[in-house]
């Protein structure tokens, strides 16, 4: 049961029996469910899942329906991480006492949270779970905004993005703060495994998720999840936007092992200018007005600086 599922190619992967059901109420073209499906299909083991309040939770558990064919719990906005950590501690305690009916089933403990629930509200709780090194995985579905409540800015919202609490107009260019480096913060807990993933690179993603499942200890995953409603693009373009995000290096894909060993896992053959990524989304539309054009240049410089920093880090192995 606890053997790692062998997934060599997409055809083999497509024989998986999905444990996430359709007719959930996520928007058409939402990347959340693409990420969830890739995670759930990466293993054949039993799953203990939790979801923080957010799009994923409200859309998959509308009373009296549930979209999950696995043990799933929702408690509060902040504590999906601690709920799963608690379940994991209980499981270990019962196993030690020999009170489990099927002790060899080895369930995997996974918590999902949006960027609002992870970067802002549940930050302290996740930090606690990572510090205590529970044998669990925390996955952020990072859509850079509080999409469920109408698009308020979160600490994941990048500079220049127009959100409902940081709207762009004649005086402001939108969000003023830079995106928080959550992965760096979590890796600084010296957890066994932390990685950034994107749903369009499914093979890279499944590899990282399986590596996370095989790891004994806390795992933190940050997954980019383009939001068709708040990023303002056509639902059919979800994968195109994700491609632009990874190929323009706005979302570089890398992993950090034990807080030290740093690997870049995807190097785009043709790096796309950041301008293309910004132009594809309605939330950055105002940046193409003459008075805000300097921000696009700043964006490009910031992304380039970050990429060269990541490369230096990989080379120096720190």
């Amino acid at each position, binding site marked *: 049961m606890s053997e790692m599922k062998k997934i060599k190619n997409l055809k083999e992967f497509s024989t998986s*029996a999905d444990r996430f059901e*359709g*007719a959930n109420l996520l928007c058409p073209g939402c990347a959340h469910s*693409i990420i969830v499906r890739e995670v759930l299909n990466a293993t054949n*083991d*039993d799953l203990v899942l939790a979801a923080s309040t957010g799009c994923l939770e409200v859309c998959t558990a509308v009373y009296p329906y*549930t979209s999950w064919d696995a043990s799933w719990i929702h408690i509060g906005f902040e504590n999906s991480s601690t709920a799963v950590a608690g379940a994991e501690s209980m499981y270990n305690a019962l196993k030690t006492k020999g009170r489990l009916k099927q002790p060899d089933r080895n369930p995997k403990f996974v918590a999902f949270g949006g960027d609002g629930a992870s970067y802002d509200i549940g930050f302290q709780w996740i930090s606690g779970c990572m510090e205590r090194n529970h044998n669990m995985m925390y996955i952020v579905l990072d859509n850079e905004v509080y999409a469920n409540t109408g698009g308020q800015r979160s600490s994941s919202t990048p500079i220049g993005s127009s959100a409902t609490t940081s709207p762009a107009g004649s005086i402001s260019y939108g969000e003023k703060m830079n995106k928080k480096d959550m992965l760096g913060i979590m890796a600084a807990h010296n957890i066994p495994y932390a990685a950034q993933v994107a749903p*369009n690179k499914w093979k890279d993603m499944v590899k990282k998720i399986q590596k996370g499942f095989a790891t004994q200890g806390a795992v933190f995953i940050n997954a980019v999840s383009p939001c068709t409603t708040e990023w303002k693009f056509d639902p059919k373009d979800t994968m195109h936007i994700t491609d632009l995000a990874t190929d323009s290096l706005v979302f570089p894909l890398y992993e950090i092992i034990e807080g030290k060993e740093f690997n870049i896992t995807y190097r785009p053959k043709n790096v796309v200018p950041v301008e293309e990524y910004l132009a594809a989304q309605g939330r950055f539309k105002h940046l193409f007005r003459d008075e805000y054009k300097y921000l696009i240049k700043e964006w490009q410089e910031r992304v380039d600086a970050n990429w060269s920093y990541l490369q230096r880090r990989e080379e120096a192995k720190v």
Partner: protein
Amino acid sequence: MAKKGWDEFEIGAMLRTFDGKIDNIAGTRQEDRSYSENSSYMASVADWRLIKPVFNKDYCIDCQFCWIYCPDVSIISRDKKLIGVDMDHCKGCGICVEVCPTNPKSLLMFPEQADEETEIASWPKKDEEEA
């Protein structure tokens, strides 16, 4: 569940996904499971759709890109072959058409009321410029 009145629920009642016994969920296909009426699999979101994907198996190369990138688990793939689209759960987002690599595409979006057989008969020819 639906037959009960508003005050007749058990306190803290659990919503069960399955009615019968399922031994290995990870290996059991969705259509082979015995769902209770509380699973969203038993519901339909077909009325969300304005345009629908039509699948033309003549051009399909079974690459499964549409299967992995479908957000609504609506691409039915069995034994590494693409069989069709689950029209009860498809919301008509059109991602499957965008990611389809064949020329011409083996999935195309048509208005909801379009007739599938007519559209397949008049499928666009290979686009020479792109090839």
